[in-house]
Each structure stands twice: as structure tokens, then as C-alpha cells.
């Protein structure tokens, strides 16, 4: 369970998000919307503990994430605007590295995941020659592989072709069904297949 209490995020002393309180429980999705520059990315990075909040608190199962430290990060997967891929490594190796950092590496799971995001046949090409959308798919392939309960996704749909958009929607639905939590931003409207969808509009 992720909750925030009177959270405030500032950029260069200018508050972007303030007095934000929400609670996200297992199986729920939080869709953060807002116009460009309204602070969605800032909020998501703060929830990840990558940026520091200026006031308020963020709690994971009731305990402040500052106190939890690595223990909080153990439960968290983040995909931001950039893809976190090593251009030199192949798609498969990139996933292997990501898995090795947080859990044991399971070659079969990696191959299945690549199949799932439709990159199986180019899994051996170095990531840097992939197209924009292929890179994005590779970045997203970390999500099912790492099996973390909390996913924080910053415009994951950008650059994806229509088939991949559907694949990702299915991934999200599955994750929620198995008790996961998702915080997501997207400029498009989606029919989320979730029991509970919270929506925060940063413009209002």
C-alpha cells in the first residue's frame, strides 16, 4: 500500500504539486494526468525517491520511505522518459543485466518476456540500432520480468505501435489482477482494466 500525505514537490523553489494525499492499495491504478509541464514526471520521480520532496510524507505499508530506504526500492519498478538501455548490449543482455541487479537471472523467463513484447527475433541486435519503439518495448519488458509489486510508469505508451499498445495494456491488467499497484501517466485516454482507477489531475 502506497500513500502520500500532503506531499509537495517543488522545482527550483516553485511548487508544482502541493497538498497531494492519496492511497493506493493492491490491484489499484493511479492515472496522473495534466498538461505538459504540470509536474507529472516530477511527482513520479519523487514517488520513486529519485527526487526529494519539499514537504509531506510518502509511506509504503504505513512506514515512511525514507526510513525504509533499500527495502522500499526492493518493491519498485520505474520506467521513465528514458529507456535505461545499454546500446552496446543486445536486448537479451540488457534484460539479463536488469534482472541480475535485483533478482536471480532466469534465461527462460527472459526469453518468454522478449517473445511477449515481440522482440524475440531481434533479441541479439545491440540495443543502440533498434528503432525508437523497439527500444521502448525493451525498456518495458523489464516490468513483467522483475515481478515487483509497484510499477511507476512515465508515459509508457509513447513511441509504441498499436499492437504494442495493446500488449502493454494487457500487461498492466495482469499485474493489477495479481495484486500489483500502478502509478502511470499518459496523454491518451485508455480503458483501464482495473477494479479501481484513481485519477489525479495536476492542472486543477
Amino acid at each position, binding site marked *: 500500500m502506497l500513500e502520500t500525505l500532503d506531499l509537495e514537490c517543488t522545482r527550483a523553489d516553485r511548487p508544482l504539486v502541493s497538498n497531494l494525499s492519496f492511497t493506493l492499495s493492491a490491484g489499484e491504478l493511479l492515472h496522473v494526468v495534466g498538461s505538459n509541464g504540470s509536474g507529472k514526471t516530477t511527482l513520479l520521480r519523487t514517488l520513486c525517491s529519485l527526487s526529494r520532496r519539499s514537504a509531506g510524507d510518502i509511506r509504503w505499508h504505513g512506514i515512511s520511505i525514507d526510513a525504509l530506504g533499500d527495502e522500499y526500492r526492493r518493491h*519498485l519498478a520505474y520506467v521513465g522518459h528514458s529507456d535505461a538501455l545499454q546500446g552496446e*548490449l543486445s536486448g537479451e*543482455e540488457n534484460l539479463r543485466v536488469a534482472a*541480475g541487479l535485483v533478482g536471480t537471472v532466469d534465461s527462460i523467463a527472459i526469453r518468454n518476456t522478449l517473445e511477449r513484447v515481440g522482440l524475440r527475433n531481434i533479441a541479439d541486435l545491440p540495443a543502440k540500432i533498434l528503432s525508437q519503439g523497439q527500444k521502448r518495448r525493451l525498456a518495458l519488458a523489464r516490468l513483467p520480468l522483475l*515481478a515487483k509489486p509497484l510499477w511507476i510508469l512515465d508515459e509508457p505508451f509513447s513511441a509504441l505501435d498499436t499492437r504494442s499498445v495493446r500488449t502493454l495494456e494487457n500487461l498492466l491488467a495482469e499485474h493489477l489482477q495479481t495484486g500489483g499497484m500502478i502509478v502511470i501517466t499518459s496523454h491518451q485516454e485508455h480503458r483501464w482494466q482495473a477494479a479501481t482507477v484513481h485519477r489525479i489531475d495536476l492542472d486543477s
Partner: protein
Amino acid sequence: MNPPSLFTAARNVFMRDLTIALRRSTDVLTPLMFFLIVVTLFPLGVGPEANLLRTMAPGVIWVAALLATMLSLGRLFSNDYADGTLEQLALAPHPLPLLVLAKVCAHWVLTGLPLVAMSPLLALQLNLEPRQMATLVTTLLLGTPVLSLLGSIGAALTLGLRGGGVLVSLLVLPLYTPILIFGAGAVSARAFGLDAEAHLSLLAAFLILGAVFAPWAAAAALRISLD
């Protein structure tokens, strides 16, 4: 998926850095070539006189090693930073200083170690005395890891800053001076048949201190750069 032990995660990071670098063998070769070329530039600039070259040699080789290490610092974090991997590293459920130490070790294996291996050849070219040769290799073996360790702090601090490549040199080179003084000093001392033991134990002390403290400082700097 079981969380891996800290040691496994650090080893994974180490191996990953090695794999990426070996994938591009030029990455390993170029600092080495740079070292060679810089040492070659000096006789071109100073003239071919053998005695002069011999007196300069320890200083020149050590300065070249400093510069070669410093130049390769860009590789330490900046690729990982640019593509977002560093964020993922910072989000890994392990103490960041230890992951940093793993990266620094990989960096040393890829740059420091080859420099050490190459140094006897350069010593030959610059007419160093045979008894200086062993001292040169020992000082480099003790000193280059310290260069990588200290360098990691500078590299972490300058991440994502424009002109980072030159800025890092500004931060790091002053920190390098003690190592240069004792490293080159030891080799020069041997030219007069003097003992270099005091110099060497100082270098060893730097190494231990660096290995203990530098990763913490670098990790803190990384978190600041990512904010």
C-alpha cells in the same frame, strides 16, 4: 525471483561493465594508446637528448598515467547516466557504495591494469635504468587504483553537466597530486640508488583509505546528480 545477495549483485555489475567494454575492444585500447601517445609527445616537444629524457621519464610516465585515467573517467558513469541505467542502479535494493565499488574495480581492470602492463615498454623507450623499472611497475600498481577511486568521485559529481569532460579534470587532477608526487618520486629516487620504501608504503596507505572512503563519497555524489 529471490533477491540476490549483495555480493552477487556487485559481481553482476562488475561483469556487466567488463562485458560492455570488451564488446568494444577499442574502449580498452584507447586509454592505453593515449598513454603511449602522450609519452611519445614529450620527446617530440623536448628533443631527443637521452639524458634529459631519462631524468624526465618518471614524471612524464606518471603524468601520462594520470591523464589517461582521467580521460577514461567519462566512461565510468556517463553512459549509464545518459540512458537511465544509473537511475535503475540507484533504485536497486543494495547499498549504492558497494555497487559503485564494483564499477570502479571494473574501471581499474580496464584502464589501470593495462597501463601497468604497458609501462615497462615505455620505460625502455625513455631509457630508464633497469632498477627503476620494477619500482615504476610497483608504484603504478599501487597508484592507479587510487586514481580510479578518486576519479569516481569527480565523475559522479560532474554527471550530466555540460563540459563535464574538462570539468572532471579540474576536480580530479588536484586530488591526484599526492599520488603523482610519491609515485614519480619513488622512481626518481631509485635513479640515485636510494630506497623507495617510504614512498611505497604511503601509496599503499592511500590505496586503503581510498578503497574505504571513495565509494561512499561517489555514491553520495551520484544521488545528488540524479536528483
